[in-house]
């Protein structure tokens, strides 16, 4: 994870496009400017960044299902719950599943576990739109870097 760059997902572990499921890993860095403020001397990953991590896992799932024809933009966060604290060095297991594939929008459920224990979960809504000019290539590059389509659909 590179928190200050909003680059949250390190590696996709599994992707099932037909079933609409993705699992990914994200390791919290040992150091980040984020921890200087949240909180001084007591570093914790902010809930808003955990939400972003769940949104990005969901977003990669939607990108893969749509074969990069549409870009998902987060438009709603429902029923978000943060059940525990997590800090530097933690390995986060991120999962997302497709709840509803609408026309021009999609709904996912996502959760993060750390050391096997539930950390947070939420229901997320996305507006899906044709790619804005110039965004397609960087998103494909990011997706390739995290192995989004490597072994896709292998269970």
């Amino acid at each position: 994870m590179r928190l200050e760059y909003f680059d949250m997902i390190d590696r996709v572990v599994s992707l099932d496009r037909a079933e609409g499921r993705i699992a990914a890993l994200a390791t919290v860095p040992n150091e980040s400017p984020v921890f200087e403020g949240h909180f001084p001397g007591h570093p914790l990953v902010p809930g808003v960044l955990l939400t972003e991590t769940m949104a990005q896992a969901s977003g990669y799932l939607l990108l893969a299902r749509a074969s990069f024809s549409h870009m998902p933009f987060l438009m709603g966060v429902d029923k978000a719950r943060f059940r525990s604290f997590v800090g530097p060095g933690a390995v986060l297991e991120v999962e997302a599943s497709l709840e509803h594939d609408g026309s021009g929008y999609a709904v996912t459920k996502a959760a993060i576990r750390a050391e096997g224990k539930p950390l947070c979960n939420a229901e997320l809504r996305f507006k899906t739109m044709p790619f804005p000019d110039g965004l397609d290539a960087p998103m494909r590059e990011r997706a390739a870097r995290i192995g989004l389509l490597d072994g896709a659909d292998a269970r």
Partner: protein
Amino acid sequence: MSDTFDRVATIIADVADIPREKITPESHAIDDLGIDSLAFLDIAFEIDKTFGIKLPLEQWTQEVNEGKVPAEQYFVLKNLCERIDGLVAEKAAKV
């Protein structure tokens, strides 16, 4: 139609926090009820789930933007309900 309207009106009232009595079959979702595009997606989600359909919002938006269909055809509630009934019937015919 009236049953569909009642269900849609209840969804709109709940999702967009609009008093139920203000919602009539003649109401225009955007012009009269002030529903914005994001709220309309929330409403579409509830309609999709409730009726087991997929409102073709992308197609409708394109048709309106290209001037092929007036927005009233989709956003006045009695027309929206007709479309919903059509989609439900279409789905039933496929089963």
